[in-house]
């Protein structure tokens, strides 16, 4: 049974049902029924047009359910007047479904869950495992999300930016359970890119491919983090990098720059360098300048300070960091409002030769870290410097 094919067809089928006027929750149930039916029937009798087959079966299921409902409510006539199912494979339906699942009325976590379920075709159990919550909790999250968007009209296109944010959230998750969320995010973004011609969709796809290409080298066998400069570049996935660069170049050529394209450009410059020393930091700083212009985000300014430190030396990096401090001062009860600020400061002080300050800051950054691998990595950095300083 081709699970990948079924999952890629799911959003299109669901989209057709919703466009024909099926209530979202009912349509989703009907599509799930059709998928189960496909798993039963297809191994022996594979249809020539799998999508049309799924639409027909799902629509029949929906009508059956609606009729049963309608009988109770004496509204049978209304349902019989619905248009008969026919071939209507249109990418617009898929696109509408993306917009619906990323609707601004949903919280980010609900949008993510609904997208994985309705567009990605994952089971509730798979999504619950990926996010380490009980299946019952995830089921509630999804059904609430469905209810929230049930009243949303399906008549005008939504905001691409919200869809991209949701896909980026999926991509940026850790890995648990039997679904690789990063790979899933790439698959969904690919599908979106096929359905809509938009440079930022291409930018996000390129960004994901470029990051994903370096994934295997990012952690050591024992799970500890390997910084970019120390990664084994021979383990980078060159096919993925080439594809990402190509998609990015085509997007940039259209001269409608957005933050995902700019981020992908930075990732491409890293991926392009044969060794860490040969990284084109000057050009990376230029892309961060673009990103500051586009987003004015303190996280971007922090990354820019790192790049400036590499391009113009640690003193220049520390100066860029000081400028950031003026913009977003330390919060009162310890810690910096910008994640990883202290870790960056530690790194720049080490480069500048101030090992005592660097060791102290690494230890502080470890206490502020929000994930285990990063905390262990920073603790090791502090220990390394302390061991070097004491006889």
């Amino acid at each position, binding site marked *: 049974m081709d699970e990948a094919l079924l999952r890629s067809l799911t959003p299109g089928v669901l989209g057709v049902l919703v466009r024909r006027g099926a209530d979202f929750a009912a349509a989703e149930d009907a599509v799930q029924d059709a998928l189960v039916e496909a798993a039963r029937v297809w191994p022996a009798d594979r249809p020539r047009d799998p999508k049309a087959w799924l639409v027909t079966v799902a629509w029949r299921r929906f009508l059956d359910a609606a009729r049963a409902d309608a009988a109770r409510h004496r509204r049978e006539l209304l349902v019989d007047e619905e248009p008969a199912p026919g071939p209507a494979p249109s990418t617009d339906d898929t696109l509408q479904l993306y917009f619906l699942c990323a609707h601004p009325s949903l919280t980010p976590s609900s949008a993510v*869950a609904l997208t994985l379920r309705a567009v990605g075709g994952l089971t509730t159990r798979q999504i619950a495992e990926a996010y380490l*919550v009980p299946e019952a909790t995830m089921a509630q*999250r*999804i059904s*609430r999300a469905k209810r929230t968007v049930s009243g949303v009209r399906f008549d005008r296109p939504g905001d691409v930016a919200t869809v991209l944010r949701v896909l980026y959230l999926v991509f940026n998750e*850790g890995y648990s359970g039997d679904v690789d969320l990063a790979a899933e995010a790439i698959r969904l973004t690919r599908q979106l890119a096929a359905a809509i011609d938009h440079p930022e969709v291409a930018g996000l796809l390129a960004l994901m491919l470029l990051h994903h290409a370096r994934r295997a080298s990012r952690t050591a066998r024992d799970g500890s983090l390997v910084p970019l400069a120390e990664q084994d570049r021979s383990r980078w996935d060159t096919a993925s990098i080439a594809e990402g660069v190509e998609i990015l170049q085509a997007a940039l050529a259209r001269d409608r720059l957005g933050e995902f394209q700019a981020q992908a450009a930075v990732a491409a410059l890293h991926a392009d360098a044969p060794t860490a020393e040969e990284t084109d930091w000057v050009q990376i700083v230029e892309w961060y300048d673009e990103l500051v212009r586009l987003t004015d985000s303190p996280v971007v300014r922090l990354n820019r300070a790192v790049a400036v430190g590499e391009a113009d030396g640690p003193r220049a990096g520390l100066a860029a960091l000081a400028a950031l401090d003026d913009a977003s001062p330390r919060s009162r009860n310890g810690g910096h409002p910008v994640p990883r600020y202290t870790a960056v400061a530690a790194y720049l002080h080490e480069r500048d030769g101030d090992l005592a300050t660097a060791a102290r800051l690494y230890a502080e950054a470890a206490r502020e870290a929000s*994930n285990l691998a990063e905390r262990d990595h920073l603790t090791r950095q502090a220990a390394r410097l302390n061991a070097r300083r004491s006889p």
Partner: protein
Amino acid sequence: MAKYLLLKHYRGAPAPVNNVPMEKWTPEEISAHVQYMRDFATRLEGTGEFVDGQALAPGGTFVRYDGEGRPPVTDGPFAETKDLIAGWMVIDVDSYERAVELAGELSAAPGAGGEPIHEWLELRPFLTEPPTVTE
């Protein structure tokens, strides 16, 4: 999304405002308190924010390795120093603000006189897996 641990202390947290020991409440007040906690958990299941929750017995034991081939040393509880955790709830919420809001609601569980106990709850974020994007 981020997961947080809500820690309820027997001891080790500052005293609640409505600080009357539970055995001095009326049975109805105890029932109301228990029901409040239960309703709270049920509501969070409904919002898709509930992960886990358990109550702990107060009696704990300290255990220590005592060398190769020897049984571990057990002792305690060391009443002077040990904090006692009464129970926990794990939530999975969209923001730190939401976590604080929920902890505040849980702290409003009714106690003596049917008034909120204003208990101090400890709110601790979980360390997560590293994100896909690191540089």
